[in-house]
C-alpha cells in the first residue's frame, strides 16, 4: 500500500495541473483554502479510482474527495470522507449497457457510502435533491450546498451597451444535452420579437447555421479567444436540457461565471442547477419553454434595465463566486 507523509488532510482528485479542466481548478482552489486556514495536506491524483484501494490514509484525519469515486474505492474509514459532488457524476448511468447495469447494481452501496461519509458538499440544491431521489436521506448536519466559484483575476466590468446589435455567446461542447439547436431557435425567436436589432451568436460550434441570425463560429478556441468572446458579448446563453435519464444535467453552469467576470448576464434554461446560478432579472433571465410569451416580456425588461443588470452580474460574480469563498468553507467546521 502506498503510505504518505503524516498530515491532517488528504486530497484525492482525478485532475491536477498540468491537466486542464474544472476539477483541476477546483483542486487548486481547495489547496489554497487549506493553506489560508493553515492546514497541511497531501494530494493524490488518480487515473482510475480503483487505484485508491492501494492508498493508506490511516494517518489522515480527513480525506477530501474532489470526485467521490476516490473515496468510494478507498479502503479507509468512510467517516473520514468529505465528498464534493459537482453534478451528473451521481447519475447511475453509462452509455455502455453493461456499465449501466453495474452502476445500477452498485447504487445502494454508493448511497450507503454517501450516507456514512463525514460530509457531502453539493454544487447545487438540485444535485442534492437528485441524490435524495436516488435514496440518500438528506441530513443537514452532513450535507450542504456550496455553489461553484471562479478565479476572478482579470475580471473587469466592461461597458458594453446595446445599440443596434445584440451579441450572444455560447461556448459549450456540441452534444445533445447542451441543446445548441434550442439556442438557435430561441435566438431566432428573439430576432423575430426585436426586428430593429441584429442578433449575432459567438460560438465554438461550426455545425449550427441560421438564416435569421448571424453566427461567428471558431471551433478551436484558445483560452484568450474564449475570454475575448465573453468580453465582446452582451449575453451568455446556456439552454442545457435535463437529460438525467441519459446521464446528464447541468450541475451549476460554470460558463455563467466565466461570462459574469466581465459583467455579461446569462440567459439559462430552468433546468439543473442553472436557476440557482442565474437569478431571474437580476443577473440574467431564466427561460421556461412552457412560457415563451413571458420570456419575451422578461427579455424586454432585461434590455430596458441592461446597464444595471451588467453591474449586478459583475458585482455578484466577484463577491459571491470568487474562489476566495473556498477559504471560508473550512471555517469553524466541527471536528477540525
Amino acid at each position: 500500500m502506498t503510505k504518505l507523509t503524516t498530515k491532517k488532510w488528504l486530497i484525492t482528485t482525478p485532475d491536477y495541473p498540468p491537466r486542464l479542466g474544472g476539477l483541476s481548478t477546483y483542486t487548486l482552489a481547495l489547496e489554497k483554502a487549506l493553506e489560508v486556514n493553515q492546514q497541511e495536506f497531501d494530494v493524490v491524483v488518480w487515473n482510475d479510482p480503483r487505484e485508491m484501494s492501494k492508498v493508506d490514509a490511516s494517518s489522515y484525519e480527513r480525506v477530501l474527495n474532489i470526485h467521490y469515486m476516490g473515496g468510494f474505492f478507498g479502503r479507509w474509514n468512510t467517516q473520514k470522507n468529505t465528498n464534493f459532488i459537482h453534478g451528473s457524476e451521481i447519475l447511475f448511468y453509462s452509455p455502455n449497457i453493461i456499465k449501466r447495469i453495474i452502476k445500477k447494481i452498485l447504487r445502494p452501496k454508493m448511497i450507503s457510502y454517501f450516507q456514512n461519509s463525514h460530509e457531502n458538499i453539493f454544487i447545487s440544491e438540485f444535485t442534492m435533491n437528485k441524490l435524495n431521489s436516488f435514496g440518500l436521506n438528506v441530513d443537514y448536519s452532513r450535507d450542504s450546498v456550496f455553489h461553484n466559484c471562479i478565479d476572478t483575476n482579470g475580471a473587469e466590468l466592461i461597458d458594453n451597451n446595446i445599440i443596434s446589435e445584440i451579441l450572444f455567446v455560447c461556448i459549450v461542447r456540441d452534444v445533445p444535452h447542451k441543446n445548441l439547436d434550442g439556442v438557435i431557435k430561441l435566438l431566432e425567436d428573439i430576432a423575430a420579437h426585436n426586428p430593429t436589432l441584429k442578433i449575432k451568436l459567438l460560438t465554438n460550434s461550426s455545425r449550427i447555421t441560421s438564416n435569421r441570425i448571424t453566427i461567428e463560429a471558431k471551433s478551436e478556441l484558445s483560452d484568450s479567444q474564449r475570454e475575448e468572446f465573453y468580453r465582446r458579448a452582451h449575453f451568455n446563453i446556456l439552454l442545457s436540457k435535463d437529460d438525467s435519464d441519459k446521464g446528464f444535467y447541468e450541475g451549476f453552469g460554470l460558463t455563467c461565471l466565466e461570462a459574469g467576470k466581465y459583467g455579461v448576464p446569462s440567459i439559462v434554461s430552468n433546468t439543473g442547477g442553472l436557476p440557482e446560478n442565474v437569478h431571474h432579472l437580476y443577473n440574467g433571465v431564466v427561460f421556461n419553454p412552457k412560457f415563451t410569451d413571458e420570456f419575451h416580456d422578461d427579455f424586454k425588461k432585461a434590455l430596458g434595465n441592461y446597464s444595471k443588470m451588467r453591474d449586478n452580474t459583475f458585482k455578484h460574480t466577484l463577491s459571491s463566486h470568487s474562489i476566495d469563498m473556498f477559504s471560508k468553507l473550512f471555517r469553524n467546521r466541527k471536528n477540525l
Partner: protein
Amino acid sequence: MKSVALLYNSPVLGGAERSITSQILNLNECKITYVIPIVDGVDQAQDLKDHILESSPNAKITYLQYPRGLYSASRSGGVGVVSLFKMLIGMIQILMNLKRLDLGAMDVLWTNGNKIGLPVLLFSKIISYEGIFIWHFRDYPFNGGIYRHIWKQLKKSSSLKKILLANSFSVEKSIKELMASDCNNSEIMTIYNPVGNIQRRDLGQDHDRSMVIGVASMLAPWKGIHTVLEFERMYRNELKELGIREIAIYGGDIYSTKGEHQNYLNQLLELSSQDSLISFKGKQQPKDIFANIDILLHTSLRPEPFGRVIIEAFAAGIPVVSTCLGGSGELVVNSKSGLRIHPYDHAGLYSALSDLSEKSEYMNIAKGAQERLVEVESQQTQFWKELNMKI
C-alpha cells in the same frame, strides 16, 4: 344578516388560523359559525379556540371530526395504495360528519385551506349547495399525483358559485394556471394576510447597541434555517465585528408533519456549536420575538405563498432581509422595504447585514417597510369592499 361557516384547515393554531380569524371579522353583517376540525380530541384545538374567543368573545364554535387516516394521508402527500384507501374511507366519514353540521343552510362556506377545501367542495356538490363556496388557498396548489383529480373536481363545479382566494398575487397566478380555461367559472381574488396585533416600535430604537438577528418560522428544511447556520459558521468573526451578538432561531414544528420535517431540529443542533452566535429559542409569541430582535432574516428556499412574518416585522419597525421567493417578493421591495438576498449566497447575506449595521440605512429600510405595510393594508381594504359587495 348572512350566515357564514368558517371551516378551519387544522386544529392547531398557526399563521393561517391567526390570519383567517381576524380576516373574517371584515365581513359586514354576517353571523359566523367557527368550525374547527379535530383529529385527536378537542384538547388539541384549545389554543385555536382560545384565540377565536379572544377575537370574538361570543363566537359560536363547533367541531368537525376529521378522520385521522385522511388527515395524515393529506399531510404526508402519500399516494400509495394504503394512503389512497385511507383517504377514501376518510372522505366518506368526513362527508357524513359535514352533513351533521347543517351547512346547506349557510349563505357562505369559507374553507381555509386544502385539507378542508376538498371535502367541503364535494359536500357542496352532493347537496347542490346554492350559496357561495370560498376556497382560501394558503399555499401554492400542488398539481401532481392525486391532487390533479382534486383540481379537476374544482374545475368541473361550474354550477357552484365559487370564489378562489389567494394570499398573494404569486399564488393567484398559480391558481389561474391550474384552472386554465376554466377560469371563467370561478372568481379568483387575492387578499394579503393581516398583520395581527404587533406593537409598533420607534424606528431604530436601540440600534446603537449590539444587534440581534432573528429567524422566525416553522422548523422545516425548505425554510432554509440550515443555510443560516452555514452562513454563521463562515462569517462568525465578521459578524461579531459588525456588532451582531446573536442569531436567534424561533419556531417549532407546529404542524406535526411526517417526512422531511422529522429530525430537522436535531440536525440543526448537531450543526451548531457552543461558540457560535446561534441560539435556539423555541416557540414564542410574535410580540415577544419582535421585542427582542433588530433584523428579521427570512431564508425560504422555495416560493413562499405570502410570508406573514415579514409584515409582522414591518409593523414592528424591524428591517427584513429575505430571499424574496414567491409572495414574499411582493412584500420586500429591494432597498426600499427590505433587502433581497439569493438562496445560499452567504456573501450577499453578509453584505446586506453590513448595510443594515449603518444606522441611516437601517432607518431608511425600517421606514420603507412601514410605508409598504400601509400599501398592503390599503389593498386589504379594497378587497373587503369588493368581497362584501359580492356576498
